[in-house]
């Protein structure tokens, strides 16, 4: 089994340029239900390790420190806010192919009118212990 992190940010997609805050209520509900159902499905298959949404870019901060004096903490608003991480799932799966399959499912989450939003999902393998049997 291999762990993958499936990440998504706030960027608009070619299929959906309207932010969720401007969708119709029933479309928002359908989207939320879809995410619940996907999590339930992955929990059922024993593949979901963790899935979390992150608080909005309004609360994001960037911290840098040169090791002396006091750290620099930058508050928003950030011009590149759409590139910030919105949420992630960590799945533990048989193969990369399965991780890609799950990412594809997540990408097709419904948007306005139930049309898949084609959200880009970043699929990244979580590094683990070294392989010992060479």
């Amino acid at each position: 089994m291999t762990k993958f992190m499936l990440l998504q940010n706030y960027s608009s997609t070619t299929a959906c340029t309207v932010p969720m805050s401007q969708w119709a209520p029933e479309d928002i509900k359908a989207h939320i239900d879809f995410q619940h159902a996907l999590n339930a499905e992955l929990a059922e298959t024993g593949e979901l390790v963790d899935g979390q949404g992150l608080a909005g870019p309004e609360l994001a901060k960037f911290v840098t420190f040169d090791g002396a004096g006091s750290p620099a903490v930058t508050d928003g608003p950030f011009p590149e806010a759409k590139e910030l991480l919105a949420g992630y799932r960590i799945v533990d799966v048989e193969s990369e192919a399965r991780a890609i399959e799950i990412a594809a499912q997540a990408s097709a989450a419904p948007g306005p009118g139930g049309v898949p939003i084609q959200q880009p999902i970043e699929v990244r393998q979580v590094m683990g212990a070294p392989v010992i049997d060479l």
Partner: protein
Amino acid sequence: MSQPPRLEDLLRELAPQVLGAVVRQFGDFAAAEDAVQEALLAAATHWPAGGVPGNPRGWLITVAVRRMTDQLRSEQARRRREEAAAMREPPPLEPSEPAGPAGGAAVTDRDDTLLLLFMCCHPALTAPSAIALTLRAVGGLTTAEIANAFLVPEATMAQRISRAKQRISASGEPLRRPSGQEWTQRLRLVLHVLYLIFNEGYVSSVGRELHRTELSGEAIRLARMARGLLPGDAEVTGLLALMLLTDARRPARTDASGELIPLAEQDRTQWDQALIAEGLALLDAAVAAGSVGEYQLQAAIAAAHDRAARIEDTDWPQILGLYGLLEQMTGNPMVALNRAIAAAMVRGPAAGLRLLDGLGERLAGHYRLDAVRGHLLEMAGDADGAIASYQAAAGRTTSVPERNYLTLQAARVRESLGKPA
């Protein structure tokens, strides 16, 4: 796990009494906790086959004390081997402590539990540490269970608990009943910790799940225990009433997928009437006991909501008055925020919005201020303002169900305007 649940309950009930007794005898909280855990493990191993002894509490204390003396002995053997023999017999129990304000009872198992509760809610501890330690030492939850409830790795929670025990040991405070003014302050800390545990379970501030009911249930169990120990204290009773009157609404508070349903839209037939009846009786008892405290006031507000079979039956003038008293007593800006809602229900949205204006500085950037403003602006018919406030609140909340709810509120108002989605 083939252990019958009744034995588990018995052990959880006895754990704090045994720990209190051992700490009182030896003073070393961290070592006593380890020894009691070993005694509980021994009981869980031996009792199912050999039967529960006639005096299970005494059995556990004896085993834990033996572990303590074994440990002390081996430590001392390392340093001064000749002292080992002197430690062979456990020291006798100390005579009764001086009586506290609750009366001149001798030291009993009940006192030990109470003293343990006071020790776990120690002023030297941060709230998260006190919560973790209380759940572990008084609640009898395993470290894994506590870690799970707070969504952190078990090793992290083990470390938090271990550091808390070290801090208490380092404070050098003996396990004793605080007296006079100190008693009041320490009891307030205990109640605050129990209240935080309940809230953590009822309205999880972080994460996906709105309810982590195991924590609410544990807080209620601990509050019942505290009331059993201090039946005459109106605030202890008030806190238990508040928990029951709030928890009674839990079944109606979320939908099937865990999304938030506001009070006004809840199916009130799902409210737990048995809990409400018990909470109301406790509240009456607390009020009859005299001194009014903040938990009683909060319980009275919860009771006013619970008594209304329909949202339009809510006694808002009473709730407004209670929030006014509570704000005077606590000076808490979140209370002022709730008072603004009540004011809007009694005198109209403009009155509520005026109260919000005075809160901008104290609650700047807090999502609840924007959420309430959105609600009051919607009541006032200012749809654009409501949408903007709901969206601002959605952007700043740290709870997924709350964000979903606020985003939906904005969308609903937008839809009612007939604006294109």
